Each structure stands twice: as structure tokens, then as C-alpha cells.
């Protein structure tokens, strides 16, 4: 199963990759913002089993990315977990309304991320 990580922080992508690898997921694709993330999905023929998406990013925010995903017939059912800092809790509500399956708030420990991933898969 392919998993897409959309985050402008190289660090967060590395941490998330490490958690996913420890869960047995090795087919990880990375993108630095929403626009790039949508391109990666198209390049992979819409074959994506899960998306972890940051909210506050340059170029295209996580919320706009999510709205575009939910508006497209080939991506509207892909599970999406939004990843955000506490300060963006209003945006978390916005993300859930826009169709996010779940969210995780930084700072988080690896076990919390695993639980969120297991819950949506």
C-alpha cells in the first residue's frame, strides 16, 4: 500500500516515515506541499492507500489540498489524517468538516500516530 506524506518539514516527513516503517509500511511517497502532493497522486495513478497531510504549508495549504481531494472522484475516498500544531485548532475543525478522517496534534509521540493510522485503515 502506498502512503503519501505531505509536509513542508523534511524533519516531520522523516519522523512519520520512521513510524510507518516500524508498522511495516515501506512504500512511502513524500511531497513538500499540497500542490506537489496532488502531482504525486496523479503520477501514481491515484493509487494511494493513506495520506498524512500537514495543514500549514506554503504553496497550497492542507485544507485546500483536502478539499481538492474530496472533490475528485478518484481521490475522495482516500483516508486522510491531518497533522497540525495546537495553535491551528480552528483549522482542525475546518479540516474535519472538509472531510478529514482524523487528525493528530503536535507534539505527539510515535504511539499516538500509530493509533491514528490503525484507526483509519
Amino acid at each position, binding site marked *: 500500500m502506498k502512503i503519501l506524506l505531505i509536509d513542508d*518539514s*523534511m*524533519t*516531520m516527513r*522523516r*519522523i512519520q516515515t*520512521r513510524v510507518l516503517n516500524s508498522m511495516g509500511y515501506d512504500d512511502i511517497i513524500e511531497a513538500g506541499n499540497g500542490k506537489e502532493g496532488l502531482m504525486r497522486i496523479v503520477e501514481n495513478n491515484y493509487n494511494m492507500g493513506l495520506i498524512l497531510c500537514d495543514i*500549514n504549508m*506554503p504553496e497550497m495549504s492542507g485544507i485546500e489540498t483536502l478539499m481538492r481531494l474530496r472533490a475528485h472522484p478518484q481521490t475522495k475516498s482516500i483516508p486522510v489524517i491531518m497533522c497540525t*500544531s*495546537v*495553535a*491551528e*485548532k*480552528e483549522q482542525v475543525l475546518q479540516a474535519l468538516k472538509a472531510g478529514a478522517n482524523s487528525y493528530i496534534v*503536535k*507534539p*505527539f*509521540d510515535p504511539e499516538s500516530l500509530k493509533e491514528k493510522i490503525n484507526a483509519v485503515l
Partner: protein
Amino acid sequence: MSVVDQKNSNGKPAIGFAHINAFVEAAVRTFDNMCNLQTERDGDLQVRRGMFGTHELVGLIGLSGSVRGAVMLTMPILTGKRVTSAFLSEPVRETGPMLIDAFGELLNIIAGAASANMDEGHVQLSLPAVFIGRDLRTGAQHNRPWIVIPMRFNEWGKYNIEVSRETT
């Protein structure tokens, strides 16, 4: 005059205990959850005006919205490498992109968690910037003071959280 009595140009407190605690709690929780590191306050608050020196590794993030100002996380480079190594679960040996990105992300998480606990409405954070070098000096607009919160890691020594802000 105590730190919490310091006034900005608009006559409002430069920073109160609630704000100081918000940053301390955010740092403690972030380093514990994401790095498995224990950290605590290390002495009295300091007020600095004008230009002053920092540790060699400096992360800076701007605050806007209901709170205007800036937050810095500063520590020696060796401590920064140890902390970011714990954050990434892999060794950070070079003073390069991995150190800069991880250090900036740690500050981003701390500032985000702290601003959420300030109970002053929506606070927007700028993207973090990281500076490295000896003899770095910082100042703030309109001679606003920097409130320095001395902190320490149980194993790896001292660092600072430094806050300059005004309430709109």
C-alpha cells in the same frame, strides 16, 4: 521592578506569568513527547533591552494576530545536535540542513503549543527561521524587551526560550 511588571510602549504588560508558563509547559511537553527528553526551568527570568548576545544556534518565529511579537529558541550547537538527534532518532552530526530543519520544526511545535494556551484568540505563526554563528546579537522593534526564560535539559545543559511581544 519584576519581569511581569515591565510595560510596553502601549502601557500593557510585556509578558505575564501565564505566558511564561505557556512557553515552559509547551517546551517540557514537546521535548518529552517528541524527543523523550526531560527539561525544566533553570533560574530567574531575565529582561534584556537593546542588542544582546545569544547561544550559537538560534531559531526565530514571528507571532501575529491577537499576539504580536517573536519567540526564539537558543542553545549551543552541540546541544542542538543532541536534541535534534533525539527528535529524529538518528544522529545529526553536521551543522547543515538536517539540523536547521529539525531545530526550526521543534520551535514551530513549541510556539504552536504555547500560543494555543495563551487564551487570547487566534495567534498566527510565521515560518521558522534558523541562524547559526558566534557573536550573534538580537534586538526587538521599538525597544520592546526580550524576556529570557532560562531552561535546562537534565543531561545536556542549558538553553533559552526568549520572548518579545506586545498585546494588541
